C-alpha cells in the first residue's frame, strides 16, 4: 500500500485562512478576549513607560506632576515600573484570556466535528488537522494581539496625557513604546497558541466515523 505525501505548508495556510475568513464572527469571538487582555497589558506598560521617561528627565515640575498623578516617588526611587499589584492583575487577566480561548476553541472543535471527520475521510492525517488549527490560531493571535497592542498603546498615551500633561512629549520614549508593543503582540500570539493546543489535539484525534453520525 502506498503512503500519502505530506500536505504543503502553503496549502495548509490557504485552507486555514479561508476558514477564518468565512467564519469571521466566530473568529471575532475567539479573538475578543485576546484583544482585551493584550490591550490591558500594553496599556499598563505604556503608562509606566511614559511615566518613567518623564521621571528620568529629573525635572522638578515633572516629578511634581508624577506625584500628583499618584506615582509613589521617594528619594530612593530610580525608575518607575509595574508594582506588584499591577503585575498580579496583568497575569490574572492573561490567565482569564487563555481560559477564554481554550473555551472558545473547544466550542469551535465541537461545532466542526463533522467537517473534521469528513476531512479525515478524505485523507487528512492527524497532523494536518492539528496544523490547521495551529495556523488558524496563529493568524487569529497575530491579528488580535496587534489590534490589542495598538489599542492599549493609544489609550495608554491618551490617559497619561490627561494625568501628566503635555510635558510627556518632551521625553517621548518612542523606542521603548515600540518595544513594549512588540512584546505585547508576541505575548498575545503565544497565548493564542497555548490556548489552542488542547482543542487542536482533541480535533486531531477525532475519529473519521464522527463524520457519519446522523443526528437522530
Amino acid at each position, binding site marked *: *500500500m*502506498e*503512503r*500519502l*505525501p505530506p*500536505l504543503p505548508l502553503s*496549502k495548509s495556510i490557504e485552507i486555514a485562512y*479561508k*476558514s477564518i475568513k*468565512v*467564519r469571521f464572527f466566530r473568529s471575532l469571538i475567539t479573538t475578543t478576549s485576546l484583544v482585551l487582555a493584550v490591550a490591558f497589558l500594553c496599556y499598563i506598560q505604556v503608562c509606566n513607560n511614559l511615566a518613567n521617561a518623564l521621571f528620568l528627565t529629573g525635572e522638578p515640575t515633572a516629578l511634581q506632576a508624577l506625584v500628583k498623578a499618584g506615582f509613589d516617588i521617594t528619594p530612593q526611587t530610580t525608575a518607575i515600573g509595574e508594582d506588584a499589584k499591577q503585575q498580579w492583575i496583568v497575569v490574572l487577566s492573561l490567565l482569564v484570556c487563555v481560559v477564554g480561548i481554550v473555551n472558545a476553541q473547544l466550542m469551535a472543535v465541537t461545532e466542526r466535528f*463533522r*467537517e473534521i*471527520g*469528513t*476531512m*479525515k*475521510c*478524505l*485523507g*487528512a*492525517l*492527524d497532523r*494536518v488537522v492539528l496544523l490547521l488549527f495551529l495556523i488558524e490560531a496563529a493568524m487569529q493571535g497575530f491579528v488580535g494581539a496587534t489590534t490589542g497592542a495598538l489599542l492599549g498603546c493609544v489609550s495608554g498615551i491618551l490617559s497619561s496625557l490627561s494625568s501628566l500633561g503635555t510635558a510627556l512629549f518632551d521625553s517621548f520614549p518612542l523606542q521603548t513604546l515600540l518595544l513594549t508593543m512588540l512584546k505585547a503582540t508576541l505575548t498575545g500570539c503565544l497565548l493564542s497558541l497555548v490556548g489552542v493546543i488542547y482543542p487542536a489535539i482533541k480535533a486531531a484525534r477525532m*475519529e*473519521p*466515523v464522527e*463524520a*457519519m453520525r*446522523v443526528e437522530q
Partner: protein
Amino acid sequence: MQHSIVRTTDVKKSFQLGKHQLEVLKGISLTISTGRYISIMGPSGSGKSTLFNMIGGLDKPTSGKVFIDEVDIAQLDAYELAWLRCRKIGYIFQTFNLIPVMTALENVTLPMTFGGTGNDEAVERGMGLLKQVGLETRFSHKPSELSGGQQQRVAVARALANDPAIILADEPTGNLDLTTGEEIIDLLKQMSSDRGVTIISATHDFKMLNVSDEVIWIRDGRIDKIEKREELNISVGTIDER
C-alpha cells in the same frame, strides 16, 4: 472469477454501552468483485452503517478481517490508511458532508490536494468532474447556496476526485426527495458503468434495487441473503411501487 476488491472474513463488531455489550455485526463474510454495483439492504438499525465503516477503514472490527485489494487494512499505518481513504475509496454520506466554508469546486479538489495533486491540475480535473455531475456553472457556490440534490452531486464529484477503485455510499438518498434521489442513483449507476468503479451503497431505498448488480440483505447483524441481478428481476416487480 473477477478480482475481489473487498473481502471480509467473519467481521464482528460490538459496542460497549455501559456494562452492556451490544453486538451489532455478528460475523459478516462477503466478497465483492471489481466494477460491480452492490447494495447493502436492511432495515434501520441492522448494522449497515457499521459494516460500511469497517469496509471503509473508518473503524476497526472487534474481530475478523477486512481486505481491500487483498490487503488486510488492520495492518496499515496511519499514512497508508490515509492513502487508502484518499486515493482508493470515495465516500458519500447521507448528510452530504461538504465542507461548509469551501465552494463546490474547492470541495471537489480537496481530496486531490490531500493526495498531492498540483493546483492547476486539480482545478482542471475538478471542473471536469463538476461538469460530469451537471454543476459546472455552480462551481463557486457554497454548499449552503445549493439544494440537497446539488450538494449530493458535488459529493459524488468529490468522491470521484482521485479516481478511486471503490465508492462507498451510506444512505446517499436518505435526505433527498424521491426524484432527486433517483437522479443521484442514476448518476452513481452511470459512474459505475463509465468508469468501472465499484459502488457499495448501504440503503433501505428500494429504488436502488433496479440498478444493483447484487444485493446483500442484512438483518440483525447477519447476512440474510445475497441476490444477484438475474434473481432480482423477478422480485423487483413486486417490491418496487414506482
